[in-house]
């Protein structure tokens, strides 16, 4: 498991998300939105942003090279 810092647009706090190398960006979206569900309703078109850029939903943690304790954001896609 890879501990990651996740920040969901609309939320008030960053959360620790445990990812796997084979998790896709879509999986990270689901995990972070589930973790923040008590405060934030699901986004309509969530997109993962890593190192300032949106990443395709099918890309995995391994292929993106996301390391332990790195930051990713999940934002509403229509804003981009």
């Amino acid at each position, binding site marked *: 498991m890879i*501990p990651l*810092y996740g*920040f969901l*647009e*609309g*939320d*008030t*706090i*960053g*959360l*620790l*998300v445990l990812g796997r190398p084979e998790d896709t960006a879509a999986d990270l979206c689901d995990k972070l939105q589930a*973790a*923040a569900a*008590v*405060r*934030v*309703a699901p986004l309509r078109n969530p997109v993962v942003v890593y190192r300032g850029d949106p990443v395709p939903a099918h890309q995995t943690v391994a292929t993106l090279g996301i*390391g*332990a*304790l*790195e*930051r990713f*954001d999940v934002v509403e896609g229509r804003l981009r």
Partner: protein
Amino acid sequence: MERSDRHGGFALARELDWTFSYVDEDQVFPPEIAGRPWLTGEAWAGWEEPYKTSYGEYVRKQRDKDVAVAAVREAVGGAEAYTRTGTAPEWLSGLKLHAATLPLAEFAATVGNLRGARFGRTSDWRTMSLFGALDEFRHTQIPLCLMHDLVRWDRQFDWTWRFYHSNNWVAIAARHCFDELLLGTDAIEFAIATHFVLETGFTNLQFVGLAAMAHGAGDKMFEKMVTSIQTDEARHAQIGPAVLRTVVAHDRAYAQFLVDKWFWRSWQLFAVVTGFAMDYFTPLAARVQSFKEFMQEWVLDQFQASLAEYGLKVPWYWDTFRESLDYYHHMVYASAYTYRATVWFDFVLPGPEERAWLAQKYPQSWPSLDPVWGRITQRWQEADPGNDFAVHGTAIPTFCSLCQLVLCSGTPRHNAAVFVERNDERLVFCSEPCRWIFEKQPERYQSHKDLVKRVLAGEAPANLVAMLRRYFGLEYPEWGKDALGGVYPFIERVSPRAKGA
């Protein structure tokens, strides 16, 4: 003032400094603990605080104040004061928050003041610091005494004493700040950071505001306690400007650094404790102004005027600070509400009237914060009354490598957390000012693990309930809940089961 004190060689005794003959001055006042810039005694000769007092005057005034506090305790103290008057549950939460964070921090301030009483560079500074130490010991004892009366009635008040002895996340953050501020600084940094920034800039005025709020909420005991403490603070805080004046004259850049560093560190804890109290824990009918309005009226204007008086600038992050007035304590409160079992006091859900008030007071930020409360309210509509964990977070929150508080800076649209690689370690800071403070003095901070790092190192459990019980020291009767069990007149349950049928 009693004339006999002032006729008995008061001025001579107040400024009785020795010329050392068989040791050097820097052996008596080593720079490591007396502070820098290290200056000869002559450089400090103009040290002057306006609030002069003699020991005799001090003892008599303090006795009178203690008698007054004891009389209020006798008349309106104890649990009856709160049960009889039907005190709002949110006010009690604010009381528990202040009661826990105040007294043992004041005890640490006793130690800091004693450092000034020994290593302050003039005899009048040392004398004032000795009075300050006595003040802070009094500020330790009064809340411990008053809140002890309430422990049998409500176990959460036991955290008045237990808080700083625990590994609760708020305690870790408060210790990180106050241990450095009150126990780990030299006499000069202590005087500027504690007396000038924290006390003159924040807490002295905070106590005035809290007393007004307590009056509005009908809490005479708390009102008397903070009023009594504030009068001490107003006196010993005068040490700060007197020290700052000399430091600015000899090393303006260092004075500016200390102000910039400690204003930010003080602000964050202040925002959590007092921001919660003013905007959420004071019943709506008793609120006289918002936390932001209080900050603008009492802190910003006066602090900026004080800085200008000494030729200093506002801290470099002033725009970030001003933006955080609209967001920071709101983001921490919403987050903490959904992690309320991790603390020792209960929370209230802001209803339509409170949210309308907040929208009016915070027109810039509330539109992005209100949806969070809409979502939490919806979760309660779908949950059984009293089922706190149906409306509670389970993921591990994240913490700043400097302040140890949760990563709640910035806005809901963009969290301001900053990531830095340092010596093969990944650090995260809630904000640019926290990163800047860490990188200015990494040797002070780099060995401290935040809560996430403790979990990952196996030093703290990852399971939430295990963390609450084994690491934070909270048991079910004590840990925070929704004060009304999610039963509010404005919540319409959506299913028969959730209605409690």
